[in-house]
């Protein structure tokens, strides 16, 4: 399991995301928010209305699964009913349970269909938003966040 968490962390970092493995996710979250010194924080549990969301500095969500080989977060609309908090604010912080990390893309696809009807909206997120449309120069944060923090709760 530790190996899998390490592989996940390495993959997230390889696509310009930050990954923190901790047993105290709440504390780490507080620390990140304090360091960012932000005003308005939106959370997927208590989301703002769709049009107000453009005015937030940070969006916090969970993820129902994660993929170690690619550093991908899997947001399932059955649990994560408001996924725009992971896209619109300039910073996205995701808090995930270590036990939900699977090894491969194939594992994640299997999980989404297992014993249930597939949910209306599933989103895979691998790193912050990016583009290379002008002179092929990589630019982070075009329509989505410029920064992605993934907090992995290793106790869960």
């Amino acid at each position: 399991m530790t190996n899998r968490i390490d592989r996940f962390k390495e993959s997230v970092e390889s696509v310009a995301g930050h990954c923190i493995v901790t047993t105290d996710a709440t504390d780490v979250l507080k620390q990140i928010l304090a360091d960012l010194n932000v005003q308005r924080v939106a959370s997927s549990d208590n989301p703002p209305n769709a049009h107000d969301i453009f005015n937030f500095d940070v969006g916090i969500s969970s993820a129902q699964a994660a993929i170690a080989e690619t550093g991908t977060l899997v947001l399932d609309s059955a649990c994560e009913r408001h996924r725009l908090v992971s896209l619109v604010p300039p910073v996205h912080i995701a808090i995930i349970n270590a036990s939900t990390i699977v090894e491969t893309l194939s594992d994640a696809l299997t999980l989404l269909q297992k014993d249930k009807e597939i949910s209306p909206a599933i989103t895979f997120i691998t790193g912050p938003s990016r583009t290379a449309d002008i002179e092929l120069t990589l630019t982070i944060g075009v329509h989505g966040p410029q920064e992605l923090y993934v907090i992995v709760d290793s106790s869960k």
Partner: protein
Amino acid sequence: MNHLSSETFKENARAALADVQLRGALKNATSLFGERRKEAAASLPNWEELRTQARAIKDEVLSDLDRYLKEFVRNAESRGAVVHRARDAAEANSIICGLAKERNARVIVKSKSMTTEETHLNDALEAAGMQVVETDLGEYIIQLANEPPSHIIAPAIHKTRQQVSELFATELGMPPTDDIAQMTSTARATLRDRFAAADVGISGVNFAIAETGTLVIVENEGNIRLTTSLPRMHIAMMGIEKVIPRFADLDVFLKLLPRSGTGQRLTTYQSFITGTKRDAADEGPDELHIVLLDNGRSRMLAHPVTRQSLACIRCGACLNACPVYQQVGGHAYGSVYPGPIGAVITPQLMGIEKAAQLPFASSLCGACRDVCPVKIDIPQLLLHLRAEISPRKGSTAERLAFKVWAKVMTSPSLYKLSSIAGRILQHVMPISRAWTSGRDLRPIESKSFHDLWSND
């Protein structure tokens, strides 16, 4: 303005070859994408096996497309989507314009879609009085510049940062800058305002899963997520060939597509959309409409050779690998689908007379076939199309020349005579300009292989 026609490929190509800045940009783009693809493919030990699997899945679908389409439609509709079938571009555009008008839509946001480029949907929506905004950064740039895309996955690669800066300064009032991050954030701010105002979001589709009725759309920027979740209506347009049988098949295609396109393991975002939301309070549109576009695809399907053209997953790898595309770029093809796959698809979509030069825009080197993630035999298709065109084309002199050639080559005595004659005549006769203007003709050796052999 840069709307060229496929009918004038040779002239277009000549003009492109004279454009030094364009050729520099093309060299950078195609070599960078090519290198990244190579590395990404090498990182997977079973790359060849994946290509074979992907092609087998596509062949499975294409041999029974009707059944898979019905399965897809049934499952998508059972989850709340409304599916429309369009025989051609005009029908697709009128379905979409009708839907938008019924909802009194004024602002429409769009994410990148080759199929809507193919049908010229934006023109139709604008003619119907609606504002259409492309939201992919590259597409937004070329929309402001009023130009067509020049590459399947990087539509504005032909533009320099100075050109983009000037464009944004004129169109958006941005202070001129060299800073690409500054240009990107200007586009972000302008487009957010349009996202907030949009009544309808229109997207393309990468894969449609028959088994579940799911649409899968991949991207890096996040504009597809916004287009498909903010407006109250989402319309997705797809070619009928986008169906794949099972959800689990995505494993193969999501490994091949990003690696072949940009060399990424996965693009930043994948959206899996299955029907409409379950609870009105959830995020997401109230309505989902899916437009299935034929527009000549059934014709391609009917013939066993051309059928494989429909296996294409639009990764752009063959463009980057092609020595012709590398030199002339996308606009010269006069089609939304440029490069080797464009030379195959365009004549079949638009009619062979309108794009008769394109299948000849290839040296048949086979680089496209080698990089194709679904193993489309593009050189074979090009030859097939050439054979369809050549009886209608070619000058009398050319036909006569080849008749004589065939006669000489099949007769040993005539062959011997011709090589003697050639050795003498090459010094006195001008060789056809049309042949030598692009090629060096080596002088004929004074002694033939036959002579050397018999002397020994």
